[in-house]
């Protein structure tokens, strides 16, 4: 089959590889009908997440048709079923899964020993991600082996198109969880940093959840215009001061709720000197991530407010003003998304027409065009916001 394979920094190729096989009774193989490129894939493309290895297959946002199952499905999944695959692999049985903490499933990381050392305790296995989370082959491919498939799947109604349901596996619940984590009240101003696909979903979620005002921050005009279309007031951080504008909008008190949908690759610019320092340290391997957005959120957030972090951080960050955060009594909530925790609710909302996540797709291409599309998405060429690949 063909698959997008990671060979090194900025080196992704559409290779021909051997087909996946059933290895365990709880495995299923799907024929991928749609998959997408995520902002998290860009962190891997840039080699910012440790423990990627040449030969790894990319992709964690995918869906398709079940073509083969192991003997252990217990009637929960069968050949011919149409499923979206959550990016977090879940056993469905451990203590964490039973609490709905699927992204920290205790059993699905096949590289648990390494993860225990790196994180203190293991987190869930993830598709097409670092070997710290199991190094499972990803879904930017024609076929995908889904481990623990009896639990790791989302069945979707035939009445909905691939484009409408594909994002149930990652960015829709990610934006939703980020907003739910904010405990939004009708008097709240919710600010979303980053208007990439995750930010767009967070904006929609905050609007649905009834925030008084949703503010979106980025520097890319077409992303800001899409944010505005979703009901947000926008700030272009390359044109105006984020802190001043946010204080202005909140009678000088600051927003109650802040969402970081940017993550470790915050834009580097002269007007934000801390980002230059972070970038220099990153290159010299003195710091993993560029946490400019975290610093800005902590500074501008209203005392007693909530900081919600769906953006991915990989390791050590410097100069986080814990003193401000502690004294202001801020609450931090974060994590890889517990995808299936939100599934039944979100499927219902899509069916009822509250939201149609396909609005975010700006580019559709073939798998062969995948390597090129990584660059188009990374360079934000041709007003690219979200790429869907059709293997």
């Amino acid at each position, binding site marked *: 089959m063909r698959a997008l394979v990671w060979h090194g920094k900025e080196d992704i190729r559409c290779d021909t590889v051997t087909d996946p096989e059933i290895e365990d009774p709880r495995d299923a193989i799907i024929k991928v009908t749609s998959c997408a490129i995520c902002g998290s894939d860009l962190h891997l493309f840039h080699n910012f997440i440790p423990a990627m290895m040449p030969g790894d297959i990319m992709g964690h946002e995918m869906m398709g048709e079940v073509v083969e199952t192991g003997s252990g499905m217990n009637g929960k999944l069968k050949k011919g079923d149409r499923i979206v695959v959550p990016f977090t692999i879940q056993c469905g049985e451990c203590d964490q899964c039973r609490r709905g903490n699927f992204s920290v499933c205790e059993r699905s990381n096949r590289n648990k020993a390494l993860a225990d050392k790196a994180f203190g305790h293991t987190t869930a296995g993830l598709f097409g991600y670092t070997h710290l989370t199991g190094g499972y082959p990803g879904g930017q491919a024609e076929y995908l082996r889904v481990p623990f498939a009896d639990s790791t799947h989302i069945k979707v109604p035939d009445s909905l198109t691939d484009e409408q349901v594909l994002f149930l596996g990652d960015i829709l619940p990610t934006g939703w969880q980020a907003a739910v984590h904010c405990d939004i009240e009708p008097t709240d101003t919710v600010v979303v940093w980053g208007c990439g696909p995750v930010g767009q979903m967070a904006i929609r979620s905050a609007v649905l959840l009834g925030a008084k005002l949703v503010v979106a921050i980025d520097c890319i005009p077409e992303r800001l215009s899409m944010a505005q279309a979703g009901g947000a007031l926008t700030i272009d951080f390359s044109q105006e001061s984020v802190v001043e504008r946010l204080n202005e909008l909140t009678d000088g008190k600051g927003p109650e709720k802040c969402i970081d949908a940017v993550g470790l690759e915050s834009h580097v610019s002269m007007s934000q000197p801390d980002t230059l320092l972070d970038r220099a340290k990153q290159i010299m391997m003195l710091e993993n991530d560029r946490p400019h957005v975290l610093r800005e959120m902590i500074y501008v957030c209203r005392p007693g407010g909530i900081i919600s972090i769906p953006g991915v951080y990989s390791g050590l960050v410097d100069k986080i003003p814990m003193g401000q955060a502690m004294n202001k009594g801020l609450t931090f909530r974060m994590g890889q998304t517990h995808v299936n925790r939100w599934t039944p609710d979100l499927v219902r909302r899509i069916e009822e027409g509250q939201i149609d996540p396909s609005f975010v797709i700006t580019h559709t291409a073939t798998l062969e065009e995948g390597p090129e599309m990584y660059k188009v998405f990374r360079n934000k060429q*041709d007003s690219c916001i979200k790429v869907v690949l059709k293997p």
Partner: protein
Amino acid sequence: MSILSRLTRNEGDPKILSSGPRSREATDELARGLGWFSLGLGLFQLMAPQRITRAFGVTGSEHVVRAYGAREIASGMLTLSTDKRAGLASRVAGDGLDIVTLLALLSYRNPQRHTVKAALAMVVGITAIDLLAAGAVSARKARPKTVKDYSDRSGFPGGVVGARGIARQKPPTEARAETTH
């Protein structure tokens, strides 16, 4: 790393049979080549500055060569990073500085001026390559003047106004393993 990959890969994981279209282009490879060249030259300037000062007839100025070496290393690291554009720009600026410095050593009193001339020719050649690479990388990353219009992409089939707060009618519910499966 390959030992680790054997540890963490399963027997059945797909293996590469042949390679197809790739994301790295000729300009990316050129930038990488220039980045490694910077690193190599910078290390040489740091470690053996007297070889260079002797060749150019300026013994005693080793500290200058070392400083230039540090600059080369910084440019090299930046050029090898994802910020190729900044790296290549810093290389071009460095080339300018090198040219000015070498021109100053061309005086008739310098018995080594022939070596300086040869070095100058080389630097000019490399500058041309740097400019080429910098131009190609910048073109790829340049922002277009006009962007697509996404103002009709609300994502709310019922419109933004109707969407505000609609999820409060039936607040978010959370599923756990037992309830989903």
